[in-house]
């Protein structure tokens, strides 16, 4: 089995595991970790596409590899935004639940603004 086949299978497994965690975990930080697993699985798929595209003296196709670099930076930025939201939510309310029912209050609906 060549390394790219193995990497492809690992990528598929990571996507599946991440999807499972993203749906199931109630905690937003656990969901974020699951999202990052999916993300690295997707990047691996780009990686094998790049590796299989080895040609013209290159041992990889540079376009999909460059896309992964862009993708990793964007995924990090997304994680940072999510963490900031989670920590602020926790600091403000002491809770981190995403359940909308938990946030509906029988108030008069007055916007604070």
């Amino acid at each position, binding site marked *: 089995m060549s*390394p790219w086949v*193995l*990497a*492809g*299978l690992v*990528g*598929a*497994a*990571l996507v*599946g*595991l*991440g*999807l*499972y*965690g993203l*749906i199931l*975990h109630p905690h937003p*930080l656990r969901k974020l*970790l*699951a999202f*990052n*697993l999916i993300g*690295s699985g997707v990047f691996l798929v780009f*990686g*094998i*596409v*790049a590796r*299989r*595209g*080895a*040609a*013209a003296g*290159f*041992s*990889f*196709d*540079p*376009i999909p*590899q460059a*896309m*992964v*670099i*862009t993708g990793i*930076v964007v995924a*990090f930025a*997304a*994680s*940072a*935004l999510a*963490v*900031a939201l*989670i*920590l*602020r939510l926790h600091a403000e309310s*002491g*809770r*981190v*639940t*995403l359940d909308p029912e*938990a946030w509906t209050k029988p108030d008069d609906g007055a916007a604070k603004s």
Partner: protein
Amino acid sequence: MSVLPFLDVALALLIVGLAVWTIAARVLFASVVGYVAYGLLLALVWVRLYAPDVALTEAAVGSGVTGVLLITAGKRLGAARAGEAGPAPGLAQKLFAGALALLVAGALAAVILILPDPAPSLAPQAAAAADGPGAGLGNPITAVLISYRSFDTMLEKVVLILAVLGVWSVGADKAWGAAPAPLGQRNPYGASVFLAQMLAPVGAVIGVHIFWVGADAPGGAFQGGALLAAMWMIAMMARITEPPRIDARRLRLALVAGPAVFLIAGLAGPLMAGSFFAFPHAFAKPIILFIEAFMLLSIAVALPALVAGPPSGRSE
């Protein structure tokens, strides 16, 4: 060479194992630690896929900087009561999620195995273009990022500005303009201070080096910038330096320097080379290095800003 396949399989098993741990661990913090270890090992897979540039990025950003971010968050949330996030999922939910995940993973694996052979590739065109728009760059990844697909790269830098502003915007109104809370404890361990004093200058030099050679060898503004960012974060964690105020003009200038210079160079393209985001053949390499130098600065500042979080009213 014959041991490599075994090492590959072992690496793959270890990575999937850590991923399972990340999902299945009962304690939040254990899950975070599992994920950080996972990120480190992933860099090795990228080496095996002949992707040293990605491996460097993954090691620095995907596991290094992300690791600090997640562990800090995990520590703060770890003490929280279990179950506050909502009720644990029921059996039906588990079965549904499991079936969906299996279906997607299975279909994806099947599709990957039947990818066309020979694989389509833009490598020949990238090689041909290296004599033209990407003139003189030995590293094709850098050529793609700063030349052929420079538009993506510029927009991605704008995304980083928005992410920094988004993180800041989560802070309190009163604290606006102030500095984020310090990254380290009040009294950092002597060892971590010593480590930071030793490591930060060396790391910073290596970071600049990675950027400089990136035109021709693995590396570039992303990887160099991420390493510089990591060094700054180490210094902040040892309390040698503190996060800057978010209204500091210098900080904001540094954050936008990369996209701003990129945008101006792109706008000047029609004058220089007849097209937006085109560079004149003779000066492509110096122009690209010039743009990259500012991108290096912006990345080195943006990543720690994202980790440091929103401005904090508290003064320690």
